[in-house]
């Protein structure tokens, strides 16, 4: 049986982060980007809980992750609200086109 250690968690988290990052960078759809951000956040959360489980203070690590989950939820709410606002204005959520703030 394979012993699941810290490394495995870290690898999974790294993969998750890379997936999220790729999603953020590649996708044009704002919702997809939001999903990518969620993935990144969760990769970070996985890292945190893994470190807490294997090396440090489990309690504080858990608290961080719980915060993180809440934060992710709040972030999703704000992000979605923004997306809806953008959509209302532009009738589109393609972020490539919403470049009114360019220099």
């Amino acid at each position, binding site marked *: 049986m394979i012993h699941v250690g810290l490394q495995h968690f870290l690898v999974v988290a790294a993969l998750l982060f890379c997936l999220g990052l790729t999603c953020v960078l590649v996708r044009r759809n704002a919702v997809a980007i939001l999903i990518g951000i969620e993935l990144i956040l969760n990769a970070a959360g996985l890292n945190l809980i893994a470190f807490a489980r294997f090396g440090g203070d489990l309690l504080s690590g858990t608290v961080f992750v719980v915060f993180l989950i809440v934060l992710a939820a709040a972030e999703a709410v704000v992000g979605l609200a923004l997306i809806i606002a953008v959509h209302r204005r532009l009738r589109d959520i393609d972020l490539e086109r*919403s470049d009114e703030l*360019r220099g």
Partner: protein
Amino acid sequence: MLETNLLWLIPGLPLLGAVLSGLLGKPLQRRFGKKAISAVSVLLPWASFGVAAWCFIQLPEGGSLHDRLWTWIAIGPLEVDLAFAMDPLSAMMALAVSLVGSLIHVYSIGYMADDEGYWRYFSFLNLFMFSMLLLVLGDNLLLMFVGWEGVGLCSYLLIGFWYRDLVNARAGMKAFVVNRIGDFGFLVGLLLLFWSLGGEWMDGAYRVNGGAFSLNFRDLPDLVAAAADKQLWGVPVLTLAGIFLFIGACGKSAQIPLYVWLPDAMAGPTPVSALIHAATMVTAGVYMVARMNFLYVHSPTAMTVVALVGAVTALFAATIGVFQYDIKKVLAYSTVSQLGYMFIGVGVGAFWAGSYHLLTHAFFKACLFLCAGSVIMAMHHEQDMRKMGGLGKTMPITRWTYWYACVAISGFPIASGFFSKDEILFQAYNAGSLMVPGWIIWLLGFVAAGLTAFYMWRSYFMTFTGPAVSVGGHEPQEQRPVITVVLGALAVGAFAMSFIGIPALWLDSPPQLEHFLAPVFSAAEGLERVFAPGAGHGVEWGLMGASIGIALLGLAFAWWLYRGRKSELPARLMAAMPRAHKLVYNKYYVDEIYDTTAVRGFLGLSRLSGWFDSKVIDGLVNLCGAAARGFAWIDGAIDRYAVDGAVNGLAWLVTRAGGKLRRVQTGRLTTYLAGLVAGVLIFVILTRFLLDVYA
């Protein structure tokens, strides 16, 4: 020495005349006519003559009169009074100058009668009398110098009197400038003399050695005697002073090499030529050398220079005179030649003989010139003797006075010129103190005497004998009495002067004039002679005979060639020797030589200086200015382009960079995120790398 307060009047009265007719002359002449001018300007010189005669009578035996006005300059060792002195020599000169001068003033009334510048003429002539009398009576060398240059100025003014003709103006200028060369010599001589009296140049520096300084004529003889062995540049200082003073005399008295101005000076009115350029002013040099006799006796070198220059000039000018056709030019060269005789006299130490010749010459040469003036007037201002002839019949007084003056100048023993010239020639032969044997000087003077007789009689015969000419359709007329009386008076004077110079050979006593002047020339008594006093009578008789002989020869030759203007001989002789004739006729081209060397060189130098000043010196100044401006331009350029450029360049760079960098701000979230990631990655890599480095 006797104090008096009259002497100043002698020059003062003519000065008054000069001022009066100079300042008020023009309105006076307009309102009262020329008589008013004559009344002032002719009477005052006569008054001056009267005062001079009165002072002469009062002159104590062997002493002098003295009249001090005020201190002129008194600075340090230099103490000079504005004072006049009359000793026998200056008494003789003052009388001669004021008498001949006054006579010529009278003559001028007739000669200048038609000239609108009458008042100006008399003002200048009076001023000349003032200057000449100042020269003669001045108590010291510096005051003498005032007169010395004053007569030069008057000469300038009167030569250029008819200034509208540029030739006259040029002649005046030439006279003044050549005289100034002489004056330069006089000044240097004066300075040398002054400083050598009380001190000495030793080892390149001057030291005062307790002696007294003075320029007063009565102090000078003793002081000069004390300075006899002082040297400057290895030459006795008195020799130097004597030679420099003689350069002054050369200028004033028209000796080689400075004689060139005198023939040109004939451009002035004829009475001026008579008074200034024959009788008085030009003799100033002789007077000065005679006055400074105590200086010259100490320097055989200087005396030899004086005598030789005089002798050479006498001969040289006589040869030129032989070929001249302008009657005034003949007389001018004759004057130069006669002045040469006077310098022989003073140069060989026979100061009284030189002075005597000065005196006699003043009368007969003035007479000759005034006769020439009378002829020129009669000929309507024609001066060429070739166009004259036969005037003797219509102008008897002029003719006979001219004849008598010719007798005097050529040295026949019935007129004064014989006695003075003969004394000079004998004394030249007798001179033992010169650097050359006396007979050389004598020989030069002797030959010149023959030439003199020839050219003077030539002029007489050409003018007064032969077929009569007519001018403007009628015969030339004798002049008014105002002119002829003067001619007669001068001829009488030329005769009367004989009596004061009859040699000891003929009488038992020495000549009266020699006796009279002896106190002034006492320094000359010690000079070495060939014959002791009273000896050498045979030689003297012989020389006298030779003189008369050569004068007769000259007369005979002139008679033969020019009497009655019939002979073809002169023309044939000239044709036979064209080159020699041309050379002498053109006065040996001396004027041309001076013109091409000295005058051109001088003008060239002045142009060079002018060019140097405006192009080099001022050029340098302007170059400095230009350089400063160039530097300022470079400085400005640096400021504008480098310093200001850096500031503006930065702003430009920022603007341009902003423009470019603006593109980065796409407004696209993904680009930003990519940037973010790239940034993080770079940061991480850098951090790792740096940590590695610093760890």
